[in-house]
Structures are given as C-alpha cells and as structure tokens.
C-alpha cells in the first residue's frame, strides 16, 4: 500500500502546481493572441462596397482552377466503369486525408 504524504507527495504537489501554472500561462498567452487577432480583424477594409473585390482576390483564378477542366469522377468505381466503357486507361489521384484539405 502506498503511503500518503512524505517527499513523493510533496514532489507531486509541486509538479501539479507547476503544471497548473504552465496551463494558466499558456491560456493567458492564448487570450492575448486572440484579442490581438480580433483587433487585426477589425482593421480590415470590409464593407458592402469592398466585398466583391475581396471575393475576387480570395477565389482561385482561372489558371488556379485549370485542374477542374478535367471531368473528374467522384469515385474509383465510377472511374473503372467509365474507363471500361470507353476502352481507356484510368488516372487515379489518391491523397491522404481530406481531398479538399490535403497537404
């Protein structure tokens, strides 16, 4: 049976206290970052008049969307069936994770 108290208990309490302080400090720093980010967001020139320009700036250009001109099929099975119908090889593009949020 473990004894309560003693030097081990003191060390554990000290570690817990340190951990608590570290988490508190990290939380405080995160709060400061969040407030700074909020102020930065408020500085954007975002009005009804500027929405179209921001939209056009953020959306992909025609060149950036070149890959969309390929008639991609949504599944491997659909690709195999189409390739078989037209007697052509199949190009399969495989990514880990989410296909729209890939690395």
């Amino acid at each position: 049976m473990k004894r309560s108290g003693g030097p081990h208990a003191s060390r554990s309490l000290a570690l817990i206290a340190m951990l608590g302080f570290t988490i508190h400090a990290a939380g405080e720093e995160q709060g400061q970052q969040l407030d700074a980010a909020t102020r930065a967001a408020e500085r954007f020139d975002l009005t009804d008049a500027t929405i179209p320009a921001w939209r056009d700036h953020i959306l992909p250009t025609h060149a950036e969307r070149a890959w969309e001109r390929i008639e991609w099929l949504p599944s491997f099975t659909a690709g195999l069936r189409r390739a078989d119908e037209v007697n052509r090889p199949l190009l399969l593009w495989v990514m880990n994770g989410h296909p729209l949020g890939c690395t």
Partner: protein
Amino acid sequence: MGAECRFFQALANVGHYRDPDGTRQGIYVCAPSGRLLASINSLDPEAVCRTLDAGLAAWEKLPAAQRRLPADFAGRAETRWESRAPRDGLILESTNRDLTGARLPLERGDRWNRDHAWFSRAEARAWLPAESAPGAAHELPTELTNRLARFHLVDNVRGQTLPFARADVTGSRIVVRVVERRPERIELAIEGQTRAASSAAWDMPTGIWTPEPRHPRGIATRLRGRAVYDPQQAEFTEFELVALGQRWGFSDTNARRHEPEPGLIGFVFRLAPPGAAQFVTPAFIDVYDADWAQRP
C-alpha cells in the same frame, strides 16, 4: 472492406508504396482490369508527366484481353459520407487564402484551399429571421455560428488542420438582417465575428482528427455578406459571405510549423456549384455537431 477498396489495394500493393501500414497516396494509371500501368507520388510535374506517358505506353502494349473490367466486379457497396449530403438544405463552397494586408489591392498569395460547409434544410431556414419584414434581424443560432467557427474558419490554407473544440470558441456572433422582401425573394445582410483559440479542452475523442501533440493556434475573423432566399422554393438562390481575419500558431500538418507567427487570412463562402463535387464532404463532417450528420 468493400470490393472497391480491395480492388485498389491490389493495385497499390504493386505500386510505388508497398508498405501495408503506410501511405498509398499518389497518382496511379491502371487498366479497368485492375492491372497497374504506372504510378508515382511526386511534386515534380515533369516526373508526373513522364509517369503518365509511361502509363499510356504500357496501355498501348496491353492485350485487349487484359484491359476489361472483370465481369463479376461488384464495385462500391458500402455507404459513404456523401450519402449524408443535405441535398434539400444549404451546401456552401468555402475558399481560403493567405492575405498580405488588410486593404486592397494586394499581391495575391499562391496558396489557397477549399472545403464545403453543409446545413440541413431546417438549418438553412434558421439563417432567416422569424420575421421577414425589411429591417427584421436575428442572431444566427449558436450551433450554426459555432459550426463555422469550429470547422470552417480554420487555417488549412497550406494543409489539413484540426477543428476547434466547443470551449475554444468564445465571443462569436453572426447577425442576419432582412434587407428586402418580395414574394419570390428575401434578401439578407449578414455580419458578424468569430473567435477561436485552442485549449486543453479537446472534446472530440472519436474524431479521426486528434491533436498529437497539441500546439497553440487560433483565429479571429470579421464576416460580412449577403444572401437571397426563395421562400417559394425554400432554398437559397444566392449566398456570398466574406470572412477576413488573423490566425496564429500551427497544427500538426497545416505546414505552419516554421511560421507560427500571426498572419492574415481570408475566406469566401458561396453556393456550391451544381455537380458531384458539392457532395465531397466537409473535412470535419465526422465531428459536426448535428443530429443528421451520423456516420454511415
């Protein structure tokens, strides 16, 4: 595992990555029969082109008898997340991009990314104020604001990232106001802000995205946009929402590890174009806070 998966596994086992426990990502050229013709995983476009040429050459040499899809090919049988797409709801396409300043014109960064945000029919209707007279306004239900803040206003410009836990989102609010009302259209103005900062309060233990290890990260945005709802068809016919803000920190795979300092970021949400692509699921659909988003 479905027949489609086994079919892919068989060809990947003879491709460029053969570790059964490792990644299989890359580009494959194969015959409908399942025979692998060429494969590669490379960021070098010339190397990819050479692989495609090699695949085509191998196809030309392949006897006709070895080209065809097996007659007993069962294909896909298992239900996937795509089946949960709210076809009668609201499907938004989101695009995000790094920004170099807070005022246009700006030099355009070359990194951008996409996702989809899904809302059920009832959730789509919840964007509208109960009163539809011009000037009527309401606050978007918290769960919908939080869906945007936790799962969509995230920094995945350079690579996949993590969602935010419920407790990470504070002080977020989106207000929707009726601008104009006609029998066939209700025009809405949308304004708001979101704030999210990662903490130790991770609350998605069953999600496929688990932070290991955790890194401080966060984002604050300001949103503004407009939408048009057709009450007769019970659907949005226009939707455009811009969110601009600042993010900081990094997650395991979002490629900010060496640049965790604060940076500006922009998002556009708009109606997803028609076609199969809109049914590509939201990246964090498995942890969506919605009853209808049940794992298939």
